[in-house]
């Protein structure tokens, strides 16, 4: 029960300060909050002092008399009060005998207020003196209910008078009889019930009432009388009810080690669902004490028992019989340990209409409750089918015990904590996922944005492509050259063409150089050379478009005639008929003197990528491997490399056949190096992975004299 508040046995209204200030009251302060209590006390003290003074002046014995509660009540105070309130007077003037008072002082707090009234009636009387007479909430409620009863008006009047009569009888008995017996009181009330039932069934005033209305009239009669006299009839001070209450409470506490197994009942103590239902039953059972009238107490018992039946139904799969029910009820009573158990049972037994507890569902369950308590009180080792020694040691507390119920309660606490934490974690996780989702979204957006931007840029670029137009020789010059070629013979063409070239801005230097050479060379050679130049120029027009200017720059500026393209294009060249002499021309053209001039015309001479690989750079390329760290790490292995090398060799044979010296002559191998580097870098990374596991490549590396140091 630790983490589940049992049903409140006191209404919220009862908890509030009686002064109506809105704060919670305290039974120790007569139901007032601390502030109101202090104020009232101050007032009282002042008043008392004043009256004491007054009384002392009047009579010497006054102050002594007030110390005895009965006497003080029976004195002038009572007289004054009687004018104001008849009922409260009798409430607060129970003629408590001196012998019962000390015992009553040490009872459960719930009866403290009553005890206070009994013990210090003077104070209570004083307090009531200050309060104007207001009909209590229950009283006005009863008036309303009376009005709602479907009875003729004179029947209602009769009902009311009967209620007042019984009320009066009870008070008279409580006030006047010197030796009180609760059984007499019970008989008195029962007789009144019988009498009233007689009236209801036979009196002419109730003639037209239906059976149900008669029943509700009887109910109402009982309810009103019992509620109004609850404080007199419930656990009267001249009975031993309170002792029994405390005894059974102690007993149940001692029996806390009892499990459902001991009782042979089918409650699963560790099942959470079952435990909830047990809690429901316990709440109702504890709640019995909070009702005033016996009917309500019985109804509450019925509710409690129905919870138990539900519980048993879920655990047994069918309607439970008494064989299952009684043990379960005993278990619930043991775990609930309700307050004032005997007082409540006796109150119902004595003061409800006898047939209520003898028949009907309420009667049946009430009987069960009574027998459960009887069982608990008379319980011994045999009734639990355990050994006498074990029973003794368990009862005395010598033997430690741990019931599933207790441990379930403990576990409940920790599980509660765990579930709290789990909830917290869940929330954190939710937030976490929310954040990571946000991250993902943001990432996606970013990519989208990037893509959009790229797209836009692309579209813009597609709309306005960067086209690099070849630098054109003024068309009229070409046309002139062609015209000359077409018109004149070969020799004449040479002459014209060379002159044309001279006039072209780009070719000035080279042609000057060529001219210089021409002087030394036979006319035929010069003629050939000129034709090559022409042919290259023509082809370059078509090829330049797809090549970047950068590439042009990188391309060997000075290798005009070393390109294989030179050979490739020759067939298209109408003029290049003399293959044999081309080599000579190359040699001539690659002379030192040509350097400057050739750089200028390198655009014209633009060639495909192959030019880099296949050109005169072949020779330097071999050397490059040794210098280029990338090339060394990267492997001679990639098949493409092998291919190029094959290509190289073949091309070497073509080109280099006559040009061994050209390698030496070439001023810088660096440019081809760049071309090579780019080529290799493409294969660089994959080739590393290849290399790690590939022994063949390792062998080759070892074989390669240029790489051993860096080899892994």
């Amino acid at each position, binding site marked *: 029960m630790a983490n589940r508040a049992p049903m409140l046995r006191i209404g919220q209204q009862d908890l509030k300060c009686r002064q109506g200030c809105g704060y919670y009251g305290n039974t120790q302060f007569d139901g007032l909050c601390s502030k109101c209590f202090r104020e009232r006390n101050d007032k009282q003290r002042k008043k008392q002092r004043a009256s004491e003074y007054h009384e002392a002046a009047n009579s010497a014995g006054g102050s002594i008399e007030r110390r005895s509660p009965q006497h003080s009540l029976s004195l002038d105070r009572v007289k004054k009060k009687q004018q104001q309130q008849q009922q409260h007077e009798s409430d607060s003037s129970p003629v408590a005998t001196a012998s019962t008072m000390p015992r009553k002082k040490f009872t459960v707090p719930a009866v403290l207020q009553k005890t206070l009234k009994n013990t210090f009636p003077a104070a209570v009387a004083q307090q009531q003196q200050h309060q104007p007479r207001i009909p209590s909430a229950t009283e006005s409620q009863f008036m309303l209910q009376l009005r709602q009863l479907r009875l003729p008006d004179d029947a209602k009047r009769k009902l009311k008078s009967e209620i007042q009569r019984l009320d009066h009888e009870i008070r008279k008995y409580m006030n006047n009889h010197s030796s009180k017996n609760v059984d007499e009181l019970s008989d008195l009330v029962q007789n009144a019930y019988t009498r009233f039932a007689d009236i209801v069934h036979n009196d002419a005033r109730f003639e037209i009432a239906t059976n149900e209305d008669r029943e509700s009239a009887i109910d109402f009669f009982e309810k009103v009388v019992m509620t109004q006299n609850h404080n007199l009839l419930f656990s009267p001070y001249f009975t031993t009810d309170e002792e029994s209450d405390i005894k059974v409470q102690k007993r149940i506490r001692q029996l806390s080690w009892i499990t459902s197994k001991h009782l042979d009942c089918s409650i699963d103590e560790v099942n959470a669902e079952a435990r909830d239902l047990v809690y429901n039953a316990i709440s109702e059972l504890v709640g019995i004490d909070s009702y005033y009238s016996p009917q309500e107490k019985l109804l509450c018992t019925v509710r409690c028992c129905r919870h138990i039946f539900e519980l048993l139904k879920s655990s047994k799969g069918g309607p439970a*019989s008494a064989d299952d029910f009684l043990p379960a009820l005993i278990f619930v009573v043991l775990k609930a340990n309700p307050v004032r158990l005997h007082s409540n049972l006796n109150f119902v037994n004595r003061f409800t209409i006898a047939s209520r507890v003898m028949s009907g569902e309420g009667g049946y369950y009430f009987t069960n409750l009574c027998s459960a308590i009887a069982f608990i009180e008379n319980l011994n080792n045999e009734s639990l089918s355990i050994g006498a020694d074990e029973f003794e040691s368990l009862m005395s507390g010598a033997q430690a015990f741990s019931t599933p119920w207790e441990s379930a309660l403990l576990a409940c606490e920790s599980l509660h904590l765990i579930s709290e934490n789990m909830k917290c974690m869940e929330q954190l996780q939710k937030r976490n996922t929310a954040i990571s989702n946000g991250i993902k979204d943001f990432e996606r957006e970013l990519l989208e944005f990037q893509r959009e931007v790229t797209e836009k840029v692309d579209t813009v670029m597609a709309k306005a492509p960067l086209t690099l137009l070849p630098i054109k020789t003024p068309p009229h010059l070409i046309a002139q050259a062609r015209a000359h070629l077409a018109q004149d013979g070969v020799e004449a063409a040479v002459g014209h063409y060379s002159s044309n070239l001279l006039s072209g801005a780009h070719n000035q230097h080279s042609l000057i150089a060529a001219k210089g050479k021409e002087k030394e060379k036979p006319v035929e050679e010069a003629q050939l050379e000129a034709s090559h130049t022409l042919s290259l120029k023509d082809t370059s027009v078509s090829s330049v478009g797809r090549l970047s200017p950068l590439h042009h720059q990188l391309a060997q500026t000075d290798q005009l005639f070393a390109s294989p393209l030179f050979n490739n294009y020759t067939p298209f060249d109408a003029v290049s008929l003399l293959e044999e002499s081309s080599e000579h021309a190359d040699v001539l053209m690659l002379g030192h003197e040509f350097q400057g001039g050739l750089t200028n015309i390198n655009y014209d001479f633009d060639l495909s990528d192959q030019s880099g690989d296949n050109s005169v750079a072949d020779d330097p390329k071999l050397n490059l491997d040794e210098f280029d760290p990338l090339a060394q790490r990267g492997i001679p292995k990639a098949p493409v490399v092998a291919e190029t090398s094959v290509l190289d060799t073949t091309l070497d044979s073509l080109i280099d056949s006559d040009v061994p010296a050209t390698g030496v002559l070439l001023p810088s191998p660096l440019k081809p190096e760049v071309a090579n580097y780019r080529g290799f870098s493409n294969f660089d990374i994959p080739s590393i992975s290849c290399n790690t596991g590939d022994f063949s490549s390792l062998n080759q590396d070892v074989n390669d004299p240029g790489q051993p140091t860096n080899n892994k």
Partner: protein
Amino acid sequence: MATTPRSGGSNSGAAQRPNGTSQNKSCQFKLVLLGESAVGKSSLVLRFVKGQFHEYQESTIGAAFLTQTICIEDTVVKFEIWDTAGQERYHSLAPMYYRGAQAAIVVYDIQNQDSFQRAKTWVKELHKQASPNIVIALAGNKADLSNIRVVEFDEAKQYAEENGLLFMETSAKTGMNVNDIFLAIAKKLPKNDNNQGSVIKPNGNEPTQTTNNCCK
């Protein structure tokens, strides 16, 4: 489950009132079931009240307290059936239950000699402690398993006659003799006085086997 006598009575009662006294007598009887656990006390009652065996309706919360109304001739008899816990350890609590009961059915299992002996002690106790004019019936339950019976029919019959008990062998499973035993009790009960002190609203002429709800 058990409906209170008041429920639903307002309309029919109001309708009948103008006629003055009703033509039918009505009685309410408290009947206590005694017997060892697992002899089939509650099965017997469920069969009688709900006509069920093992197929329980959702509405049946418990079988410990049930009511059933039957009509014999011109009398409406309402049985209020109180089940008791049969375990030995709760034996001493039984008087609380049969206090004020007009009838009792002591049930035993014909396959179980012990249950028969327990039944005998119940009967003895009832004779000693219950109200003197209590009607006691002895029911040998699980008669459908008579081929493996332990308690002979004649033996039980003889015992019943000696002690002035009604006796039948019943089967909650097949329904054999279940209604009959309740009817026999109802016939034997004195119907002239209503010692419950509360007047039960008279019902119309209903067939004998009806539930309260059908009676309206």
